[in-house]
């Protein structure tokens, strides 16, 4: 980057100061405080604090319920990410065909990402409600009896996963469409001339060329299912039934703000932070260069 520069040693910091100030005070400081808090046991709404070292982490590691929480989080994230990206890519490829009205279809396919997970949750909660929910009625016609979507663990997880995929579909389709439109069609034509069939062309050319986009979406979708689903879970299942949808962020919220186990909740924050850092490093290692700095 050899862009011509303006002169001044102080001036750039003047321009950067609002951003740096906010990031230091409201991001770096609280993150550091979270690490500090995770080594304390806090009682009586913060009035008594006792240093306990790594005891909070040891407690979590020995708590089978917490391991269950991790398992549920990973399970939901895996299905939401793999299922969501697969469906989105299929839709994007269909919408990328040269047909009349293509731009209208694009808008019709991507708008749900403007909806909040909470709104998606409220609507799905009602659709699947026993007794009067429309989808529940339809499934009862097929299965012969009402399915208890909110009472049975496997069904509740399915409900959350379906609502999550629906809500994030538009976001993924936008990025896959953008990727497909930027694709070098000459490579596809060359593959076609070389005798590659449609299936080979998809896997060996299209999918391979889209891999930086897939990696980018992988990370954003994992973050989505780790954190943004909080609103949906809070409205639809409240972590239940039998903790079936009690994901890490929901467990953290309850420990921190309902049971006031501040130190324990902070320790869970540190674990989540480690997961996010790990994922980001993987992203940078594998695709970061192409996604962020290429071109």
């Amino acid at each position, binding site marked *: 980057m050899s862009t011509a520069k303006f002169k001044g040693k102080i001036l750039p910091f003047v321009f950067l100061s609002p951003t740096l100030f906010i990031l230091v005070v409201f991001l770096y400081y609280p993150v550091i405080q979270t690490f500090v808090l995770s080594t304390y046991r806090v009682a009586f709404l913060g009035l008594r604090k006792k240093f306990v070292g790594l005891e909070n982490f040891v407690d979590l590691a020995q708590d089978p319920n917490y391991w269950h929480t991790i398992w549920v989080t990973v399970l939901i994230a895996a299905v939401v990410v793999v299922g969501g990206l697969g469906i989105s890519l299929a839709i994007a490829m269909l919408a990328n065909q040269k047909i009349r009205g293509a731009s209208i279809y694009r808008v019709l396919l991507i708008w749900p990402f403007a*909806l909040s997970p909470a709104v998606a949750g409220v609507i799905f909660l009602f659709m699947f409600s026993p007794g009067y929910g429309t989808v529940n009625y339809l499934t009862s016609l097929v299965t012969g009896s009402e399915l208890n979507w909110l009472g049975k663990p496997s069904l509740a997880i399915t409900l959350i996963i379906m609502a999550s995929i629906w809500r994030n579909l538009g976001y993924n389709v936008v990025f896959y469409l953008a990727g497909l439109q930027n694709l070098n069609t000459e490579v596809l034509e060359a593959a076609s001339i070389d005798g590659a069939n449609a299936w080979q062309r998809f896997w060996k050319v299209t999918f391979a060329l889209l891999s930086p986009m897939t990696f980018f979406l992988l990370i954003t979708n994992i973050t989505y299912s780790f954190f943004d689903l909080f609103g949906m879970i809070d409205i639809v299942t409240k972590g239940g039934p039998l903790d079936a949808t009690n994901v890490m962020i929901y467990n953290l919220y309850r420990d921190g703000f309902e049971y006031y186990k501040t130190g324990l909740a902070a320790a869970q924050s540190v674990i989540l932070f480690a997961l*996010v850092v790990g994922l980001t490093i993987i992203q940078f290692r594998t695709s970061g260069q192409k996604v962020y700095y290429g071109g």
Partner: protein
Amino acid sequence: MSRHTRNQILTHLGLIIISLLVMAPVLFALSKSTQTRAQVFHYPPTLGFGTAMIDNYRVAWNDFNLGLYMYNSLIIAAIVMIFKTIFSMFAGLGLVYFDFPLKNVVFYFILFTLMMPTEIMIIALFNLVSDLGWGNNYAALTVPFLASATGVFLFRQHFSSIPGELADAARVDGAGPVRFLWSVLVPMSRNTIGAMALIQFIYMWNMYIWPLVVIRENARQVVQVGLRQMTAQQDVTNWGVVMAGAILAMLPPLLIFIVLHEQFTKGFALGQEK
């Protein structure tokens, strides 16, 4: 019929079916938002237009305070959208058009915050904001969100792609960096600014866990937590009213989306791939 035409028709058919499936939950909510309690509980369920549309929306807006909550959400979303865009542009200007020691360190310092979503530090942030005495006011919902790595990153990337001769020309003409930003960079950054505004508005409008824990007084509560109250407060939930609430809550971000979706695609999605 040629094979080409048949393929076209099949593609249209596929896209129409998928579009309808994507739309189905919202159409369902729209229909139910007009039905009375009796119509909602009718078995088997009906999906027609009910007779309680005005009543349902009025109850959601007034009795469940959604009007007030939407006003609050609109204010905080607008404040963050405007100031975060300006601050991110300033930071991009500082990073691209100036040379200073440790520039890369500063950039990575900003980039590193990508790994710090509000949720992972929510306890400490709650303590900090309470200590500042901001519980229950707009400052708690806006100030911590006025800067982001995403914004700085978008503008830095976009500014880097603008030919450097432009800055040279501006300097020869005697324009300072602020003039240059306003009269050269801003007009050339329409897509990036549009994408940024859309992302930030939706992010703030959809905020849930942070207002839930930090706002204790209903007068300052936001729309998503308002929806939560609607489902939680009633003994036998009046679903017609709740669906009216859901429809109301999705309108502002959808409007912004319809206005800015092209900028979003060009300024953000394509930018990621470049």
